[in-house]
């Protein structure tokens, strides 16, 4: 049906201007665009093929707009998502409140979606420690409570960005593996891996 072969839907959520698009830019194109801030309109979709332990996984990343205007639409972007990267700006405490809002949304509507908390713009802290408005340990406690992973990234320097997405993909693969073992789900029609192919092909 669809020409785009996507294994896992990943959605980026968070307040506007926290740097969701920059994070995707850094990860997908390995670049950081300097220039005036451009807010995302609606949502942007990018597919990224990556390799996890010799297996190919295609992440379909939905980079959503942070603007409140699109809030009512946001469900179509996170519905059925395997992973949500909920971003907040390490130098803006209000953005963390917004992140908590998204976590609640996800817990209510997408139980099976793994949550990754991502504190962005860590390079700004390297310049000036006092800019940090959100304590790492507080967020770690919160992350444990909601069973989320926590990353602090910088799209400018690239710090922790690949690690974050790699983790998303690894977690997806291990869950998919468990599920296919338990329920015999045919995940591999889209995923021509020889090992799985032989066991699930019919």
């Amino acid at each position, binding site marked *: *049906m669809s020409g785009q072969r996507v294994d896992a839907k990943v959605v980026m959520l968070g307040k506007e201007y926290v740097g969701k698009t920059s994070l995707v830019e850094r990860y997908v194109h390995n670049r950081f665009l300097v220039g005036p801030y*451009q807010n995302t309109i609606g949502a*942007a979709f990018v597919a990224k093929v990556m390799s996890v332990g010799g297996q190919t996984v295609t992440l379909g990343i939905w980079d959503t707009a942070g603007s409140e*205007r699109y809030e009512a639409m946001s469900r*179509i972007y996170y519905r059925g998502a395997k992973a949500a990267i909920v971003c907040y700006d390490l130098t803006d405490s209000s953005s963390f409140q917004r992140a908590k809002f998204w976590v609640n949304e996800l817990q209510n509507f997408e139980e099976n979606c793994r949550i990754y908390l991502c504190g962005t713009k860590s390079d700004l802290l390297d310049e000036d420690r006092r800019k940090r408005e959100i304590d790492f340990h507080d967020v770690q406690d919160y992350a444990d409570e909601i069973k989320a992973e926590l990353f602090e990234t910088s799209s400018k320097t690239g710090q922790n960005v690949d690690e974050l997405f790699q983790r998303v993909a690894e977690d997806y693969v291990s869950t998919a593996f468990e599920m296919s073992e338990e329920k015999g789900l045919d995940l591999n029609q889209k995923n021509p891996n020889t090992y799985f192919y032989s066991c699930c092909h019919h």
Partner: protein
Amino acid sequence: MAADVYKQKNEDVPNGSLVPPDRQHAERSESPTPGLAQGTEPGAGQEGAMFVHAKSYEDLTGADNQDVIPRSPYQTEGAQDELTKMEEISKDFSELSTQLTGIALDLEEEIRQNEEDKLDLSPQASRRDSVLSGEEEEDVTMETWRMHQKHVFVLSEAGKPVYSRYGSEEALSSTMGVMMALVSFLEAEKNAIRSIHADGYKVVFVRRSPLVLVAVAKTRQSEQEIAQELLYIYYQIVSLLTWTQLNRIFQQKQNYDLRRLLAGSERITNNLIDLMARDPSFLMGAARCLPMPAGIRDAVSSCLQQAKAKSLVFAILLSKNQLVSLVRKKDQFLHPIDLHLLFNLISSSSSFREGEAWTPICLPKFNSSGFFHAHISYLEQNTDLCLVLISTDREDFFTVSDCKRKFQERLKKRGVYHALLEALHTPFYSASQVGIPELRHFIYKSKSSGLFTSPEIDVPYITEEEKERLLGLYQYLHSRAHNSSRPLHNIYYTGPNENLLAWVTSAFELYVCFSPLGTKATALTAVNKLMKWIRKEEDQLFILSPQTY
């Protein structure tokens, strides 16, 4: 290959035809006359228009009637069935113009009204000062702020700032309060403020409940044209929120701060205001076609038509605000205003280059109460070719994305893609190709197709200021030709730097710029020659066979 023929021809005969000789056609009238019926003028589509026409307009914009200024005594003026297409397209605007410049049926009332409109101005300057001086302490860049050619303000009926072209809205809240006070003051008297003229400024008010839009302009535009721009800004806001949502918000909370919902859209609005000063599309109420060999365009259109999906309503291929191809669902027509809003949205953001965008968008002239979902993407990262697929189903992203893939595959399979890119790289045509020495520039609009063509603006209009000045002259001619109380069909304007001619018929509009050395007689001969040339080139310059699903 068609593209090669096209190119070669261009080089060989500098003033000649853009059409390969085998594509010349005899079946259409060679020499257009002013009596030319609508639908037979050069550029008229052979299989019907792509845009709204008189009959479909009202059906498509039913909801829009609600946002017409309720108190307007003129809103029903004019027999609907007699409206020509042009009038339909600029219906809103002509309504406004009636209000702004028309000679009212009751002359006495008109005079009284004018007095009321202007009574606040005596003494003129001091009043305007008080309007603008509120933030003198707040804004340090006051002098430069005041020097701007055109200010645009949007406020809610509670007087809350929504948008300001320059300066922060917070700093301008008292100014906006005064604006709202002016509006309310006259409304209390069962009247409406439309414009204030003072000290070289025009202050134009447009009321579209729940918003009030105000422009303070030093430009040469008429109030009618400034009001038209304000309407575009209003539609721009509606395209983000829908009219229904906009009204619901203010019904629930009168003093709602709309900036919360519009956050991030300032750039789109700013871009729209800049674009309106540069791009004649808005003035013409029509879409500009990217010239290209008809064979290539038809092949592209049919590829686009074949990549269809159930929920697709419109598919638009464009390059730098010019239309390459448009496929629509049968019986569904796009309104030029909606198309302009799409063009503006795309040109205001480079973020569409980063993948596939999927965004809710309201096309206010099509249906102001609901959202479409637009799939926006560039065919390749480094081309200007942008594809917009408009779907009715927000869940249909992957289906629509697949349509794009199919379209691209088909283009390549048919060998059209390369030719298309080549046509894009061929420079725009220049006025010198027409072979009229004194001709500098022109704008020709076919009314039945809603399309216009215009050559590249050449010497001596090189600088941005010169280009805007030329557009300003066209604006002036346009406003004279479309003055609702005294419309003109033929205008010959002799200026210090150029002579201009405007010719408006029921089928087409032509605006021509000549060198200042020509005479009226030579201009008339030239216009005939130009019309013949446009007829000869029409299948390159226009989309003659639009496709439908």
